[in-house]
């Protein structure tokens, strides 16, 4: 058993992370909680990218570290998403004194 040189270890960890993030996003009645669940899911995806990149056999083609670059972009997009999403959350809170996503339903058709 050699954990850190074992692809399954990373994949199982990231699937656990993903599922917990999903659960948080589905069950929380707090917009920030949902947001943190989304962050966990994004992290799980990034971890998968890097894991597959590291264990990939280089079969032809240049070694551009595509997986790493994709994870980097995931991190960056998560950052922008955090800025915008939390700004919206705070705006909703300022209007409603409440950040339960079920409360903000005025725009529902």
């Amino acid at each position, binding site marked *: 058993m050699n954990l*850190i040189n074992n692809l399954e270890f990373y994949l199982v960890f990231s699937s656990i992370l993903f599922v917990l993030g999903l659960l948080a996003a589905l069950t929380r009645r707090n917009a920030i909680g949902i947001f943190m669940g989304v962050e966990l899911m994004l992290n799980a995806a990034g971890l998968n990218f890097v894991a597959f990149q590291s264990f990939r056999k280089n079969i032809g083609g240049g070694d551009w570290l595509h997986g790493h670059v994709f994870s*980097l972009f995931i991190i*960056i997009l998560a*950052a*922008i998403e*955090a*800025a915008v999403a*939390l*700004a919206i959350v*705070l705006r909703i809170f300022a209007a409603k004194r409440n950040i339960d996503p079920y409360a903000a339903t005025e725009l529902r058709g």
Partner: protein
Amino acid sequence: MLQEFGNALSFIVLAAILPPAALGIFKFFRPSYPHAGKLMTYECGEIPKGSAYVMFNNRFYLVAIVFLVFDVEVALLFPVMMLFRDAVISGEGATQVFLLSFSFLFVLLLGLIYEWKKGDIDWIRDAEDRRRGLAKDKKWGRTLAS
């Protein structure tokens, strides 16, 4: 590289366990005579009123957002800027690296200029104050408690 990260990790772990360890060991030597006055939140001798968890001004949040974006930018520029010297010396791709990184920087600088013009990075928002007819103290500016 794993060894180096191991070293770095052991620094982190040691720094993290230092406080609880020191506090835990000396727990047996130090006195502990708590009473209500000692355990009260300190508010310059007044009896504390209400919770401290009041809603904060959005300005802190604005600063945090602007920081977030620029932090991402700095982090992204590190691997690119690192190439620049070698590119110049080998004579290959220096123009490419320079143009890409500085167009990247320039786009974000536009963001900073926008914030500046809109007054979002001013702690005291002169424009808003003027619109609301609040006079600004000539010498010191209007100092909000913050």
